[in-house]
């Protein structure tokens, strides 16, 4: 019972920290700019095509641009949570803020779980709200509604969770800024590896294709992102591109939905990395 209270108290504190720090202001500003830009872009797209695009072409374009903008959001969420997760753990232990808190009758694992839950709430809340706003704007401007918005947004939230769990593990070992930089660096590397793997697949080069598969196993952010894209894009979009054969090579379309096995692996991955973070944090001398 006391552990539950500790976890909820720390989660609430983390959310309050996120809402009161400048990071929320920066995130909101970036999000509004991206939403406004994409709204304007979609309206130009609709106006300039002037009816010359077929319905299928319009849907394909909407799918690709929506995925592109969503990638922007996932990048903002990645940056935001990674740079929030770092300071909140190693920053607090470095500055001494954690001393008074951890001298209270609380378990370190409960403290860590509270921090993690708070960050997950913040990061997932952000991508879901911003993503929903974006989908609504696209629907209002060009009349396109994605086939599986709920599962796609859930996968985006899962991607954010994966990255912030990694940032949390890193922040138990290295400095706040370094943990943010390394986490975002790994996120981008995995994305690039995914694109390279896609090119390999479309060229039929198994070795190159494997780069994508392996990186997707090591850090599931890119795999989950591809699953999310699949939920945002129009099913006919793939057939539009060379009958779907070369869709793999295209970074803002996803050829196949996620398998349950991959989702299970992503969950196991998060539990494993969280466990490592807890082990490392439990042993830390403050």
């Amino acid at each position, binding site marked *: 019972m*006391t552990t539950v*209270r*500790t976890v909820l*108290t720390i989660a609430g*504190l983390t959310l*309050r*920290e996120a809402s*009161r*720090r400048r990071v929320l202001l920066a995130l909101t500003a970036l999000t509004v700019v991206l939403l406004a830009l994409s709204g304007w872009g979609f309206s130009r797209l609709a106006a300039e095509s002037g009816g010359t695009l077929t319905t299928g072409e319009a849907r394909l374009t909407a799918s690709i641009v929506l995925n592109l903008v969503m990638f922007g959001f996932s990048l903002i969420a990645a940056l935001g949570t990674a740079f929030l997760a770092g300071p909140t753990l190693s920053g607090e232990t470095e*500055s*001494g*803020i954690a*001393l*008074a*808190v*951890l*001298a*209270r*009758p*609380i*378990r370190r694992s409960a403290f860590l779980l509270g921090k993690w839950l708070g960050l997950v709430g913040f990061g997932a809340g952000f991508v879901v709200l911003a993503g929903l706003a974006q989908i609504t704007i696209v629907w209002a401007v060009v009349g396109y509604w994605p086939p599986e918005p709920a599962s796609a947004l859930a996968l985006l939230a899962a991607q954010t969770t994966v990255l912030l769990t990694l940032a949390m593990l890193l922040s138990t070992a290295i400095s706040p800024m370094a943990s943010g930089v390394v986490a975002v660096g790994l996120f981008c590397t995995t994305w690039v590896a995914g694109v390279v793997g896609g090119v390999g697949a479309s060229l039929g080069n198994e070795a190159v294709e494997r780069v994508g598969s392996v990186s997707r196993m090591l850090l599931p952010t890119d795999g989950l992102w591809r699953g999310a894209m699949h939920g945002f894009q129009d099913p006919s979009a793939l057939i539009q591109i060379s009958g779907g054969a070369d869709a793999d090579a295209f970074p803002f379309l996803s050829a196949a939905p996620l398998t349950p096995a991959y989702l299970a692996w992503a969950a196991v991955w998060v539990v494993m990395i969280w466990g490592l973070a807890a082990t490392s944090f439990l*042993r830390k*001398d*403050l």
Partner: protein
Amino acid sequence: MTAAGLAPAGPEAARAAAAQLVADLPSAPAVWCSGLRKRYGKQQAVSGVSFSVDRGEVVGLLGPNGAGKTSVIKMLLGLVRPDAGEVMLLGAPASDPAARVRVGYLPELFRYQPWLDASELLALHVRLSGVDVSEHDQRECLALVGLADRAGDRLGGFSKGMQQRLGLAVALVARPDLVVLDEPTSALDPLGRADVRDIVLELKGRGVAVLLNSHLIGEVERVCDRVVILDRGQVAASGTLAELLGQRELRLHLTDLSAQARARLLATGKADQEGDWYTVALPVDDLGRAVPDLVAELVTLGARVHAVEPGRISLEEKLLGILREGAAGRAAAGSEGVQR
């Protein structure tokens, strides 16, 4: 009291007295630690520290920089994992976080969430401690450290001194039975120091145990019942102030001191001369006769006595003496090692 009560009796009576003594003992000590050891890399920070703090007792932790004081405090509170040793807080093993329910702590490095305001910080610590403290009592606690009118201000705008006062409020808010204060006055002005002293004395009056780590020896001397002196990660000395400072001194201004008179002076105890001023260490068991006897005999032996001042070895002198002896001992051991 009867004469029979004072007279030594048989083993039965001794056993009864011992049983009574145990029954009269207060509950488990506020702090009990044994054989604490900690190594950081190649540096042995703490090697075999054992001491205890009784309920309601104020114990000062003294020692030079790097003596291991803060490491010991952090091991007591579970913030640093000892390599070896045991800790009990208020009768419970410190490995269980619940042992810290009634423990308040002001860290040496006091920093608090800058995005919270003072009353929110206290509410957070009350929630984390699991103790029921009303909002009124929380406000009282802020008032105690002189921050009543800053309750709604964000901590980001607090000065260092105000943050340290706030830290004291955090340590006191959840009705502790043990308060650990690590350098509680490092950022305070003289007025703030006096406030902290009053608060510690008030805690002592309420039966709250206090472990005080401070460089300000005068502060320790005024409020502490007992002192533990750490040097190089070990307990160099410990005891009540009376035990540590038992030796008293006498300063005398003398002229026309004959050889006989000088011999009489030396017979009292160790003496130092500075011009016409002599400082003599008095025997611990003088029963109040040593000073008049010495003065009377000096006069008889022809010495002219201009001034007689009682002196007391200060805790600072005692501390420096212990640390220098330790250093000299290590140097001697080192040179012996070289000779071998």
